[in-house]
């Protein structure tokens, strides 16, 4: 390949070797935040275990797994929306809504458990489809439409279940209550969803196009990518994920109780951002998002486990999120600096016509 740079033509190569090595390490940390997050998860586990060795007891790990399944699945769906450059605020109250709906389908409507699950997930996907269509057809900002449905869903679950809807099916309970080889079923579901999402994003051409849409919608459109379909896909997945988490929570609560979860959309967004998904779109890997969710779950469960006052837990989560957001900003600023560099070249163009005297037509 034509690798030898001509002096002055390649800007990245113009720095000294020492500073380049230093900036490369920093650059790698900035470019792949996943590594840092995974390390943070391990450190947190070690610290909590050192304080109280029971933290890595099987039953505690199983609890951790179920918590992680809920937040993690939401975060995976959320990260798709974020990668397209949008956001899905609805997932928190949508999850609470599906806690009620899944119980209602099974108990009140009398559907067999698995059919009730299927209907709930389909409903979630349709809800996401609605988001996607409103965003792409009507041009409503994702923030707005998902905020609207967030409010709607927050009321709808109370309307459906003024009183908790009891669940009696043991199959339903099994989702959060049973294990396979010691691993909670909910956790297995999460792992499967995360793997499928990873595969979709990194091993299919459609996944790559999803990133491209978030990176630059106009560039993606002019490169022949069906941007609307890609955006709609992301919201469909996010909606379906919220339904899955609703089922898991209903199973854990053993009833369809209204207002059972709140604020989860923020945890989902936080997980994605901590894991390296840029709110500007176009960036973020599933492994990072999963690690981000794991960090939040380990921190919040761990702090409870070592008897830290709940107020401090929230504060710690806030600090972690702040650090993540700052890192995100630094990353964006770094990109803007690079973008600004190209902008400058374009900017000098009006005057750059001075060149045009020198640019006698050259065809070879």
């Amino acid at each position, binding site marked *: *390949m*034509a*690798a*030898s*740079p*001509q002096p002055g*033509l*390649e*800007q*990245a190569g113009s720095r000294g070797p020492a500073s380049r090595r230093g900036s490369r390490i920093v650059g790698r940390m900035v*470019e792949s935040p996943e590594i840092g997050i995974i390390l943070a998860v391990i450190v947190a586990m070690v610290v909590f275990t050192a304080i109280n060795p029971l933290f890595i007891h099987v039953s505690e790990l199983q609890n951790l797994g179920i918590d992680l399944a809920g937040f993690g699945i939401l975060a995976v769906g959320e990260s798709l929306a974020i990668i397209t450059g949008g956001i899905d605020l609805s997932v928190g109250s949508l999850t609470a809504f599906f806690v009620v709906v899944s119980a209602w389908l099974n108990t009140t409507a009398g559907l067999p458990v698995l059919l009730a699950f299927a209907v709930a997930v389909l409903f979630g996907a349709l809800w996401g489809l609605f988001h996607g269509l409103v965003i792409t057809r009507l041009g409503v900002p994702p923030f707005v439409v998902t905020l609207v449905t967030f409010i709607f869903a927050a009321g709808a679950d109370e309307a459906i279940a003024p009183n908790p809807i009891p669940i009696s099916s043991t199959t339903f309970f099994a989702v959060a209550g049973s294990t396979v080889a010691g691993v909670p079923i909910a956790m297995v579901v999460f792992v499967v969803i995360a793997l499928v999402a990873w595969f979709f994003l*990194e*091993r*299919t*051409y*459609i*996944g*790559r*196009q999803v*990133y*491209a849409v978030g*990176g*630059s919608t*106009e*560039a*993606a*459109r*002019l*490169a*022949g*990518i*069906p941007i609307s379909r890609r955006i709609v896909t992301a919201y469909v997945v996010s909606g379906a994920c919220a339904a899955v988490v609703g089922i898991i929570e209903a199973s854990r609560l053993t009833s369809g109780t209204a207002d059972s979860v709140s604020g989860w959309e923020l945890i989902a967004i936080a997980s994605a951002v901590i894991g390296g998904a*840029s709110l500007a779109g*176009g*960036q973020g890997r599933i492994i990072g998002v999963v690690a981000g969710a794991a960090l939040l779950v380990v921190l919040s469960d761990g702090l409870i486990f070592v008897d830290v006052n709940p107020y401090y837990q929230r504060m710690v989560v806030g600090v972690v999120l702040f650090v993540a957001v700052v890192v995100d900003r630094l990353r964006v600023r770094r*990109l803007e600096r*690079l*973008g600004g*560099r*190209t*902008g400058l*070249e*374009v900017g*000098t*163009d*009006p*005057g*750059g*016509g*001075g*060149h*045009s*005297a*020198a*640019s*006698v*037509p*050259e*065809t*070879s």
Partner: protein
Amino acid sequence: MDTGEDLVLAGVRKLYGPAVVLDLDHLVLRRGEVVGLIGENGAGKSTMMGVVAGSVTPNAGTVSIAGKLLGTGGTLEAQELGVAMVSQEFPLVGQLSVTENLLLGRRASERRVLLDRRAMDDAAKGMLATVGLKVQVRRRVDSLSVAQRQMIEIAKALGRKPLVLILDEPTSALGPSESGRVLELARQHASGGGIVIFVGHRLHEVRAVADRVVVLRNGKLVADLTPAEATEPRLVREMVGMEILTGEELAAPAEGATLAFEARALEAEGLGPLDLKLRHGEVVGVAGLMGSGRSRLLHVVMGARASTRGAMELDGANYHPRSPLDAVNAGVGLVPEDRKSQALLIDASIRWNVTLAILRRISLRRFLLTPRADRREAVAIVERARVRCRTPEQSAGSLSGGNQQRMIFGRWMAARPRLLLLDEPTRGVDVGAKAEIYKLIEESRKEGMAILVASSELEELIGICHRIVVLRRGRITAQLDRSEFSKERIIAAAAIDRTAA
């Protein structure tokens, strides 16, 4: 001579890097004068306006306005000295009302703190009346047409009661009657003792309005003419200079090359009807002034803008793209004008950028994107388009402009289109990179692609095209074969109103 009442530019020089973009010895603009300022793209007009308006700080020389020296205080200082500029990009706030825009940063009445809405509206109405625009002052500016916004911008400038009024192509967005009104306003301002700098691309308008016509070429003042001297042929000659450009060696398309693309009576908003034919292996240039529809034509062919009428054919097959996706599937590619916002995934890797338009093709079973195939294709494209990089994994943003442009070329060459559309293919790249891009164009041509290239640089089109079509207000006003190429003919066809076209 300098009465202290005039605008004087003395020894003003501006350099961008090594390039001298403006170099004026001594230019005096007197009160009561409308001075027409013309020149080709890049002749230094914008820089000169910027210097007077305070947005460009010259490297040497002084600007004095009515005897006061303009310091380094930027646009604010220039405004205080009485300069108002109406630029082509209107700095209006779309979400605010007409009144709010007109009175931005000013207060209409003596009442402090609170805004007196009625007084503001009245003041705004008065300002609109001077320019003869009838719109409701409470309307949001983004609900108005471009022409209306242009008039508001002029009203805003006049509202500051300036000494020097700079109008940068003020009529390019306007229809005939509004244009007439603007010319009238310029005359009024001058007869009221002001100075008007009128930058225009329609030569007949400049002649009609100006007391003097100043021509810039390559940053230098090359002619200072009276209206009587400033005939259109003379102006064109002064703008272009004496250089005579003959076509260099350029291999003709293969004998008997078939028709690749044909448009018949093609129409879109602001474009056409026009007819256009391209053969395989042929490079056709699209020339025209800003706003003549060059980019628009390319975007319509790419399916990025809807055509409203007419027919297109690709290799004899009916072609009616509803989206760029249709275009790509039919074998059309576009290297867009604005690399940063229309082409690059700036934070993604070079690999992601170059394989973007062929993702589906390189995927296994048209679905599975294996890292191996992705990398293999990326390396091949980077080599072919001669993108200089350490690795295809580095980010697109880390490349120089020329390298980025070659990368985008690589993206489309890999897609092997029948028809490749190039919009300002060498904008913002240095001279060396330009030559390499011309080489890529030539290589693509030899492979049999038909290439339609829109450019504001005439030397470029003259150098690389077999044929040039000239657009004016969305219509083709001239089709020149290589033997007929001359800048004068092109500029004449692009700029001059011919009643019998």
